[in-house]
């Protein structure tokens, strides 16, 4: 179970939170750090604050957003004012982020050597112009955190059960379990089952984590006859 983001956020010590250097040094409202698997599977290592957590989850749910763009292009994605973004590569995410009250979002790819291993998303609730210094500081902090972020994700992934919270890697075990249940219920491949889960969350306006939990607890079932 995911613990309540607010409680988890206040309980974690400053040393524990990999996001806090970003929030402190760059004066942003929130940060989220994710690592990325071979097929673009995103695992959240750390988020600071509820809003950053929601935006991070949103990109995972929608399969689009500035973080994913930063991963693909291997360069920072800088949106100083979400209200004035036009022609975005992530229209659905943009609308949802505006609705959540996000003013600006900045995504920095996290590299180890030449490999892209993850992404850091920074958000502010108001528009936020940035200069070269902001960018270079954010990039330096991203470099500093890369290995630790990967190590945390590695050790969490190697444990067969580990509690997930804002400060510990959210490997979204329930989402993958729910995908397995849908594979079984609808006789689908894993990518198709996951797409079905995404579609259900999107069409009902709920988070993918919530829908997954309902599937795992058998509150929600997919029936091959009605699907």
């Amino acid at each position: 179970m995911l613990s309540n983001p607010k409680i988890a956020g206040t309980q974690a010590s400053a040393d524990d939170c990999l996001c806090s250097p970003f929030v402190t040094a760059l004066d942003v409202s929130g940060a989220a750090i994710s690592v990325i698997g071979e097929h673009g599977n995103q695992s959240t290592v750390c988020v600071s604050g509820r809003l950053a957590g929601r935006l991070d989850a949103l990109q995972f749910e929608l399969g689009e957003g500035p973080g994913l763009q930063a991963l693909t292009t291997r360069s920072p994605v800088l949106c100083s004012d979400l209200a004035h973004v036009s022609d975005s590569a992530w229209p659905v995410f943009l609308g949802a982020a505006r609705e959540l009250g996000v003013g600006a979002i900045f995504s920095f790819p996290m590299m180890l050597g030449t490999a892209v291993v993850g992404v850091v998303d920074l958000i502010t609730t108001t528009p936020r112009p940035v200069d070269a210094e902001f960018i270079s500081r954010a990039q330096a902090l991203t470099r500093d955190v890369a290995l630790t972020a990967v190590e945390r994700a590695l050790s969490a992934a190697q444990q067969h059960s580990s509690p997930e919270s804002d400060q510990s890697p959210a490997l979204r075990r329930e989402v993958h379990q729910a995908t397995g249940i849908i594979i079984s219920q609808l006789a689908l491949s894993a990518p198709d089952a996951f797409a079905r889960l995404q579609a259900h969350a999107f069409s009902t306006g709920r988070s993918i984590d919530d829908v997954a939990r309902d599937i795992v607890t058998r509150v929600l079932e997919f029936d091959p006859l009605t699907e």
Partner: protein
Amino acid sequence: MDGTTREAQISAAFVTVAETLTVDHDLVDVLHTFVERCAEIVRMDAGGLVLVNDAGELQLMTSTNEAAVMLESMQLEAAEGPCLDCFRTGNAVAIDNISASEASTEFRAAAVAQGFNSLLSIPMKVQGAVIGTMNLFRATTEAVSSRDAAVAQALADVATIGITHERALQHAHLVEEQLHNALNSRIAIEQAKGVVANGLSLSMDDAFALLRKYSRDCNRTIRTTSEMVSRREITVQQIVEAATKR
């Protein structure tokens, strides 16, 4: 050798090292060419390069000929000799007449037997730490000029940067691979738990226990089993049957 030729040679050696910074190359090949060129530039006849490996031991990476291999291996085995002195002190060692030098009797005998009478050993340093040495040998007795020693050191410094860079990249790729493996494995296992839990009306924990038992019985990793389950290559029924048979 005229100045122009020498300059061209030095540039070529630098280019060789710069190759280590690009993607497609074999480090040992690059180092081999590099040592050959360095030897040429400072007019030595043979050379080799030893580096500290992951286990902290000195390892012969490359040598330009068999005689150099012999002389370096001999020092590594004996854990003594001018090249090791260079490694331990971090200072270059130049010997213009090996027979008349203070080196051990064994080393002097070995060097002369391999046809070497003078040498230059250059430390390879990263932020003060010595990661290896480049050792150059000459058949004749001849003093190494301070200019040649300086050129050799400059070339070794550049090679050191290349080697360090290469090692960091290798480490990064290793970590990336581990990450991908761990994440893929975790996803496959959780998906398989879902498939089994749904198919047999089990809890996630019991589904996992069954997957683990089945994997053990079939002598497969749980990841392999899980991938087969989530790709529907084996059915839940097959897992149950295998479990009840035993």
